[in-house]
């Protein structure tokens, strides 16, 4: 079902979506340094999607896109775990090698460097992709199936 809320709601939602999504991506990328991580950041990004869907309705046809993003995140996670299988599952084979996210961690008190962490950072990115896609897919499917009850009197109904 397709609907649209009043102009005030849609404008505020359009303004607020980008900061919320950027904060979620920050939480995902800094997961190995600060509180947060793949799940928390993904949930924050999905809440920005919820804001967009509540304001604008279940627009478009996104089931294929979100499903493939979810599958990509899960496949990346499993491959990341299996590549370390020479030692153990999820062996951190990138830490300290100087390659992707593999800088040496300095000892002592330091502000924290994003180029460290090895496979932990990549795992956070994979989990973030999976959580963003899964929660957005749940919200989009429920909004698509839900009816068109009067939530507001000022709401202008837009037929599909």
């Amino acid at each position, binding site marked *: 079902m397709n609907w649209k809320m009043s102009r005030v709601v849609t404008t505020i939602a359009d303004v607020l979506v980008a900061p919320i999504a950027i904060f979620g991506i920050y939480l995902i990328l800094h997961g190995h340094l600060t509180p*947060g991580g793949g799940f*928390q950041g993904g*949930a*924050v990004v999905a*809440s920005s999607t*919820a804001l967009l869907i509540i304001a604008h309705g279940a627009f478009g046809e996104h089931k294929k896109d979100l499903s493939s993003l979810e599958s990509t995140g899960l496949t990346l996670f499993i491959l990341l775990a299996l590549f370390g299988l020479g030692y153990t599952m999820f062996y951190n084979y990138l830490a300290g090698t100087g390659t992707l996210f593999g800088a040496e961690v300095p000892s002592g008190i330091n502000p924290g460097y994003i180029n460290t962490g090895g496979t932990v950072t990549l795992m956070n990115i994979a989990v973030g992709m999976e959580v963003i896609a899964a*929660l957005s897919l749940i919200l989009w499917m429920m909004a698509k199936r839900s009816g068109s*009850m009067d*939530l507001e009197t000022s709401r202008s109904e837009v037929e599909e």
Partner: protein
Amino acid sequence: MFWIYQILHLLVLLSLIVTALAVVRFKDLISAAISLGASSLLLSLEFYLLRAPDVAIAEAAVGAALTTAIYIFAIKSTEREEGYK
């Protein structure tokens, strides 16, 4: 400085009880869902005061935003008013 935290805990927990009672008492289900979101936000503030910022972020994102949206979509499919007809 310790008594400030005690008073903050007390305020947050009392408003948590008030919002939780409001969830039960409201007959309008949209109001009850919004009130549940407010209760969840206060619970995440309490987690932050107890120095668990990781749990607080997860609770704020999932409890306050996503479940409220899902409840609103579910209420849109059914009746808005609670009642027995």
